[in-house]
């Protein structure tokens, strides 16, 4: 009897001990926490935060290095050590060898030119620079730093940019594992246009970063590439992410965003108001004009089904497209869009907006 009682007590204690161990080790299992890293690339800050276990900040840096990599490749202003970039192609007199990554980025930009019916054009850099110069003059004048009233770019200057752009071809070749790029022109008298991937590089890099994130198996994350391109994973614990507009559409927000890619184009920050219209770096490569009928557009696409690079190119194109083109692209490419003008909503094509009280 005593023996049995002791056995019974031993079993109970053993069970309690096991239970205690389970609780203890369950409590000790590493808890996932938000980890955040930031880098400066492509003229903006790129923020990445993800809910991960253990210190994985080096993994976050690994993802963010995608932006640094494509920043170097797409640079039009500076050369980088051991990197052949867009500047090198623009300045070369003949084909030059480029990396596979730059080859693929340039190929993608040509695909997007076709897909957007030419509203996005990788050779529109000179035209954009022409209007950027005008915008800078207006800004200086408005601040009192320029006495003479700024004048619009001349018809001749715009025409020259358009002619050069339309007569220049970006020739890409791959031969025996060697990738080359060359700008050729069929009108040597007018000069060549230059490549500018400013309207696509950030979105393209964001897509590559997204793919890397998925390879790492992360689910809960938010990638904010300077607010013009955002890729969101899950955020189940907090009911999704929310988003609003500071100047473009104050008074509205979107909630419960998850597994979505977002892209926006706007003239508000980089543009200037002159004679009642906004002018900025966003140009229409078909007409040469720089004052769109809307001040901005934001598009939303399912993360798994829409390419962030494609969305970047299309936001640029949507600034200039007709209503029918916009509708056709939204349906074909699978994104929803909102269009705004001077802080007011112009059109909402299927986006669930909430008014901020």
């Amino acid at each position, binding site marked *: 009897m005593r023996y049995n009682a002791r056995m019974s007590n031993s079993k109970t204690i053993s069970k309690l001990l096991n239970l205690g161990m389970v609780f203890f080790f369950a409590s000790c299992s590493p808890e996932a926490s938000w980890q955040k890293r930031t880098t*400066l690339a492509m003229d903006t*800050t790129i923020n990445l935060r993800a809910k991960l276990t253990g210190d994985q900040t080096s993994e976050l840096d690994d993802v963010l290095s995608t932006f640094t990599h494509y920043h170097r490749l797409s640079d039009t202003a500076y050369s980088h050590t051991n990197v052949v970039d867009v500047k090198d192609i623009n300045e070369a007199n003949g084909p030059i060898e480029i990396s596979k990554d730059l080859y693929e980025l340039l190929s993608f930009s040509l695909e997007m030119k076709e897909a957007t019916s030419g509203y996005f054009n990788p050779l529109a850099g000179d035209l954009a620079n022409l209007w950027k110069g005008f915008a800078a003059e207006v800004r200086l004048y408005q601040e009192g730093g320029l006495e003479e009233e700024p004048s619009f770019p001349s018809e001749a200057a715009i025409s020259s940019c358009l002619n050069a752009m339309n007569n220049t071809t970006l020739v890409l070749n791959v031969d025996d594992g060697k990738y080359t790029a060359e700008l050729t022109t069929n009108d040597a008298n007018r000069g060549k246009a230059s490549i500018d991937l400013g309207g696509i590089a950030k979105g393209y890099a964001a897509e590559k970063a997204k793919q890397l994130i998925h390879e790492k198996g992360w689910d809960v994350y*938010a990638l904010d590439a300077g*607010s013009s391109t955002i890729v969101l994973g899950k955020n189940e614990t907090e009911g999704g992410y*929310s988003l*609003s507009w500071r100047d473009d559409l104050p008074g509205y927000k979107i909630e419960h965003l998850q597994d979505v890619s977002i892209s926006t184009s706007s003239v508000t*920050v980089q543009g200037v108001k002159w004679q009642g219209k906004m002018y900025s770096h966003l140009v229409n490569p078909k007409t040469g004009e720089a004052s769109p009928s809307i001040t901005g557009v934001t598009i939303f696409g399912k993360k798994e089904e829409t390419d962030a690079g494609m969305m970047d190119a299309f936001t640029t194109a949507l600034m200039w497209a007709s209503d029918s083109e916009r509708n056709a692209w939204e349906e074909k490419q699978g994104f929803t869009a909102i269009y705004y003008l001077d802080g007011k909503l112009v059109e909402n094509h299927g986006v669930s907006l909430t008014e901020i009280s």
Partner: protein
Amino acid sequence: MKKGFWKTHLGDVIVISAFAVASAGLCVWAALPKSQEGNTHLAEICLDGNRLDLTISEDETYDPGEVIDGGEVISSIHLQNHCLNLASFGDEELSFALQGAVSKMEIGVKKNEIRVIHSDCLSHYCEAQGWLSSPGRPIICAYNHISIAILGQGETDFVL
């Protein structure tokens, strides 16, 4: 028998109790809200994505860069966690110089707001962004590798 039980299993009971207390402690710790920089009056200034360590050095100048208000060093009451405590400023704008990656910038600050007054960059987009008063979209000067953000959670997670 009771006496015998304690004699035999006192050690076991202590171990189990220790496990239980440790488990409960860990559970409570996990459930507690973690401290975050939720103060929406703190402005963070970053160079190349890394927060500038705005502290007063031994010679009473700020490092890196000079943080100057009309020739006088801004008082340490305006600093908190190496950030500018915007709530500590008055309604009148003060300015200070900040050393960027390429050149000095002029930063304006007043109660709960901050802006770039001047940068040598070509585009001047940083100046055009105007006053920043809430978390969300930071002011960027790509030329000087500087970003200025107000910490904390705004009304939404992202601001375009």
